[in-house]
Each structure stands twice: as structure tokens, then as C-alpha cells.
């Protein structure tokens, strides 16, 4: 075995393994069931959006003090998940990590889907969402441009740029695979669709060189972009003066948190794709091992970040900051805080054990818990600060409503729906790159 991450198979077998599920679909009732459930949840999402637009933001649990709620937490959580896709593509490519090849395609797709859902959330949470386009710079009749100093405008640029960048990056990587599908297609219709998507790619070495010039440059740009995007998201809070938010650690803390939750979601998707496509030779136990190690690393960094927050709250001697930290541990939301610490810091320590890293069920469960813990972290950042602000007269508890949960569950359903469609029509791993890595690994 030349590499623990890659099978020792000829290129034709790789093409067959990845392209055939798309070209000769053999999806049983499981796919239809998954599609149905996802579709139902997506419908729930659409209904909650319709109700929100019809009645107003008041259908959620937000109030005068807890002026932000689930929508912003969902936004940060989803964009965090979207982070890992680009990190896997870009960072792992630049550092020549062989285990990138089997997972990069759906990881990048995860980025696209998650970033799209994330981009939807700030629009939904607007009081007048039909005017969301005022966030974009365009010459308008009022002569006004957006207010450049606002972190939400930075968000607009970051998310827009990130979404389009990821789309281009993903597409460029997938283009040669569309050519493979075009050449292998059994029906005229599929040939035309994939042919169009492949743009007439001929696998020419000259073109490969230009392709590599572009793809490599994109990878190099992608890493600072990902860091900047999630730093900007962190600035939504850090640029303010509320206790618990005005911390300079927020940008890097959010980036690591994003990588953390994103990788955890990649683990979940990898397990799903491995099972669904029957490709354990492509998504191997070694993949889960290394991803578990990444998760462990992130857990340690997150623990350090939390500890830094607590330390600086104490060290600052600011009564408001100290109080907030105390409230985190002993206040009204304390049970959620402790749960979050357990999910994010404590339970992933199990990954020190090699046996657990290589056990797919264990890795999967811990990954799901990490995602839950990271969502809790997002909502706690928002609610703990807003419910216990500077003036005690304004303290109030945030209590989510049915529509808050409906939108969250619906967005998960929509994400899942997109993947059920993705697995049907897009090659789920990078055919050409897996072949390339196998070739590199062969002595």
C-alpha cells in the first residue's frame, strides 16, 4: 500500500468508482427516503420564512435587549461550517496532504451549500428584508453608498467574495471531472449537460499547466480569504462594546472555531458518502484518523481560547467582564455553557485514543457533538452578552420560539436536500486528483 489514504487501484477503477454512481444511478429507497425527509424539512424552512416575512421579526424570540437571536447564531454556525471546505481544499493542497483528494469535492460543496445558507440568514433577520440590496455598493438614487465602517458591510463583502470564490474554486477543480463524466456518459442528455459543464476540456498538458497556475494561485488566495472571512464574522461582535464581545481574541477564535465545526461536519459527510457510495477504499479509516487528529488539535486550541477569555476577564479587573464570565458558569444559561464545554473541549479529548480515532461510530458521534457544541457556543455568545448587558434594568432572558427552531431545523434539512441532489449528479470525490495522488505515491 503506497499510502494509507489511497487505494492501490488503477485509474480506470477510480473513474468507475466515482463516476458510475452518477452516470448509472443505483439509488434505492434510502435515497428517496433521505430526499423526502430533507424535502419536508426544507418545506418547513420555506414556511417559516414565509411566516416571518408576513408577520415580522416578532415571530422569533428576540426582544428589546436580546435584539439578536437564532438567526445570527445560525449565520455564524453555517459560515463556520462552510469554512472547512475551503481550508481542506486550499490549505491541504498547499501543504500537499494526500488525504485531501478523496474528500475535497464534497467538502468544497459543503462550503458552497453552507455559505449559501449562511448568506440567507442575515437577510432573513432584517426587519425589512426586501431592502437587503442596500448593503451592496451601487449608484442609487439617494446618492448613498453603504456605511463602510459597519462590520455588516464587511460581512457582505466577505460572504459575497467567499461564496463566489468558492464557486469558482470548486468549479475549476471539478471541471476535469465533468470531462470524465462527459466521456463516460451513457445517454445523450447527460453527455450534453456534462459536456457543457466541462467547457470542452481535452485534458491537454498545456491546459493542465494553465489550470494548475490558476488552481494553485486560488489555493494560495483561499487560505487568507478563509481567515479573513471568519475574522470579519468575529468582528460583528468584537467591533462592539458589549461585555463579552469587545475582545481582540474574537477574530482568530472564530476562525479556529469555524475550522473546528467545519471539519466536524466534513467527518459526518465523509461517513455518509463512504457508506452511500461504497468507497471505503477512497475514504479510508486513515482519513478519519487524521481528521480526528485535526479535531483534537482544534479542541485544544478552542480550550485555550476559552481559557484566555476567562483569564482576561479576570485580569482586566473590569467588573462587567468578570460578572459576565461568572454568569457564563453560574447564570441562567449555565447548563448550556457547561454542555458546550463538554462537547467542544472535554469529549474530543477521547481522540487521544487511537482506537477511538479509527472507530467510525466513535468519530461520528463525537463530530456530531462538536457541531452541537459549536452551535451552542454561537448562540451563547449572543445571548449571554445581550441578556446581561451593562445596565441591569435591561436584563431579560432570550427564549426561542417554535419559528426559531423551525428555521434552524429547516436549514439543516435544506443542507441535507442539497447533498442528496449533489450525490446524484456530481462526482462526489475528485477523480483526477485521486489518480494524481496515487501516481505520486507509487514508487
Amino acid at each position: 500500500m503506497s499510502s494509507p489514504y489511497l487505494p492501490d487501484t488503477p485509474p480506470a477503477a477510480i473513474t468507475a468508482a466515482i463516476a458510475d454512481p452518477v452516470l448509472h444511478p443505483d439509488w434505492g429507497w434510502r435515497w428517496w427516503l433521505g430526499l423526502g425527509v430533507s424535502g419536508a424539512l426544507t418545506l418547513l424552512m420555506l414556511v417559516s420564512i414565509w411566516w416571518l416575512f408576513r408577520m415580522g421579526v416578532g415571530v422569533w424570540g428576540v426582544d428589546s435587549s436580546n435584539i439578536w437571536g437564532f438567526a445570527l447564531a445560525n449565520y455564524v454556525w453555517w459560515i463556520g461550517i462552510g469554512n472547512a471546505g475551503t481550508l481542506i481544499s486550499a490549505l491541504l493542497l498547499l501543504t500537499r496532504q494526500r488525504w485531501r483528494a478523496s474528500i475535497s469535492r464534497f467538502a468544497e460543496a459543503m462550503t458552497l451549500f453552507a455559505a449559501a445558507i449562511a448568506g440567507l440568514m442575515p437577510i432573513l433577520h432584517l426587519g425589512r428584508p426586501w431592502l437587503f440590496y442596500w448593503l451592496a455598493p451601487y449608484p442609487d438614487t439617494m446618492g448613498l453608498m453603504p456605511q463602510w465602517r459597519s462590520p455588516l458591510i464587511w460581512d457582505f463583502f466577505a460572504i459575497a467574495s467567499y461564496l463566489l470564490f468558492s464557486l469558482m474554486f470548486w468549479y475549476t477543480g471539478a471541471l476535469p471531472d465533468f470531462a470524465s463524466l462527459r466521456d463516460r456518459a451513457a445517454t445523450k442528455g447527460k453527455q450534453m449537460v456534462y459536456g457543457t459543464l466541462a467547457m470542452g476540456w481535452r485534458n491537454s498538458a498545456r491546459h493542465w499547466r494553465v489550470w494548475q497556475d490558476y488552481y494553485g494561485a486560488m489555493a494560495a488566495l483561499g487560505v487568507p480569504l478563509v481567515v479573513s472571512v471568519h475574522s470579519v464574522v468575529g468582528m460583528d461582535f468584537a467591533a462592539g462594546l458589549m461585555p463579552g464581545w469587545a475582545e481582540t481574541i474574537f477574530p482568530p477564535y472564530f476562525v479556529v472555531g469555524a475550522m473546528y465545526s467545519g471539519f466536524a461536519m466534513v467527518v459526518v459527510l465523509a461517513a455518509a458518502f463512504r457508506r452511500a457510495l461504497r468507497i471505503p477504499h477512497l475514504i479510508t479509516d486513515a482519513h478519519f484518523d487524521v481528521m480526528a487528529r485535526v479535531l483534537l488539535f482544534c479542541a485544544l486550541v478552542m480550550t485555550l481560547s476559552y481559557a484566555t477569555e476567562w483569564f482576561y476577564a479576570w485580569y482586566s479587573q473590569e467588573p462587567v467582564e468578570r460578572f459576565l464570565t461568572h454568569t457564563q458558569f453560574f447564570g441562567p444559561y449555565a447548563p448550556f455553557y457547561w454542555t458546550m464545554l463538554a462537547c467542544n473541549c472535554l469529549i474530543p479529548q477521547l481522540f487521544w485514543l487511537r482506537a477511538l480515532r479509527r472507530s467510525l461510530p466513535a468519530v461520528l458521534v463525537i463530530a456530531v457533538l462538536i457541531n452541537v457544541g459549536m452551535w451552542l457556543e454561537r448562540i451563547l455568545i449572543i445571548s449571554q452578552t445581550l441578556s446581561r448587558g451593562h445596565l441591569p434594568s435591561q436584563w431579560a432572558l432570550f427564549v426561542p420560539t417554535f419559528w426559531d427552531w423551525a428555521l434552524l431545523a429547516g436549514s439543516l434539512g435544506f443542507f441535507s436536500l442539497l447533498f442528496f441532489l449533489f450525490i446524484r449528479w456530481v462526482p462526489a470525490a475528485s477523480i483526477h486528483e485521486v489518480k494524481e495522488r496515487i501516481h505520486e505515491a507509487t514508487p
Partner: protein
Amino acid sequence: MSGTRLLLAFDGPDALLAAARALRAEGVTDMDAHTPWHMEELDDLLALPRSNVRPVMLVAGLAAGLGIYLLQWWTSTQGYPINSGGRPLNSWPAFMFAVFETGVLAAAFAGLVAFLVTCRLPTLNHPFFVPAATEAASDHGFFLSLPAQDAPDRLTLERMVAPVRMIEVGP
């Protein structure tokens, strides 16, 4: 790539590389290859030209970044100055976010355009697609492409590099 090309098909990447080296030694120029994945060795072996994608990306990124900076600066200080929180009108640290993001996006977009233009894509009806055998290029086949005109004759090629197949592809 104009003119008729002669494609030499091989089974594996090593055979292709050996053939390329051999033909290069023979002084054959204007060679190309068709491989299922990007093979770095071919870049030097076939003396493939470096593209201008990266310089284009750099210029586009810088230009867009500068442009968006100027837009922000001008609208904030000249066009429609507004007192926002007592912050200075020229809030350049805040402007840098959009500069970076727009620069990266512009670089990405310009690079994609440069890539497609340089490769003259999309060309959906290139003569390469006419023979059925070339379909293997995206699967498991390796092809070396010579200009048919000045290529060594078939027998020489057969002796030198032993391709599995030889195909002629029209202009």
C-alpha cells in the same frame, strides 16, 4: 494547436514520459499530451509555456483593491460625508476589509477568465473529440500529441516509443 496532430496512446504514465523524453531528444517540438490528471513532469519535458494567469490575477486584484479603496475614500470624504459615531471621515482601517475581499474576488474572477481565454475554452467541438479512443484521456489513457506534419514516420515511432495506438486528428 492548429494543423493535423498525431496522437500516440500509451497505457500508463511512465510509458508516456519515456516516449516524451525520447521524442524530445529527437528534437521534436510543439508536443502536447493528454493525461487524466495533471502531470508536473510534462511541464518541463514538453517545454510547455508558462501562462499569464498569475500576473493577471495579481494586477486584477491590486486594481480592484485600489478601486474599491478609492470608492470608499471618495464617498466617505468627498461624495457624501457623514458623521458616524464621531469616527474620522477617512476611516481607512475600516476600508481595508472591502479592499482585501474585493481584491481576492477580482483576482479569482480575472484568473478564471484568463485561464479560459488562454486555453481557448469553451471549445465544445474540437477535432480531438472526433475519434472515440480519445475519450480515454479523461479516464485511464495517456496520449502524446505531435504535429503530424514534421513528425517522424510511423515505423520510427513504433520502434522508439511503442505506443499502443496511433491516431490522426484533423484540424
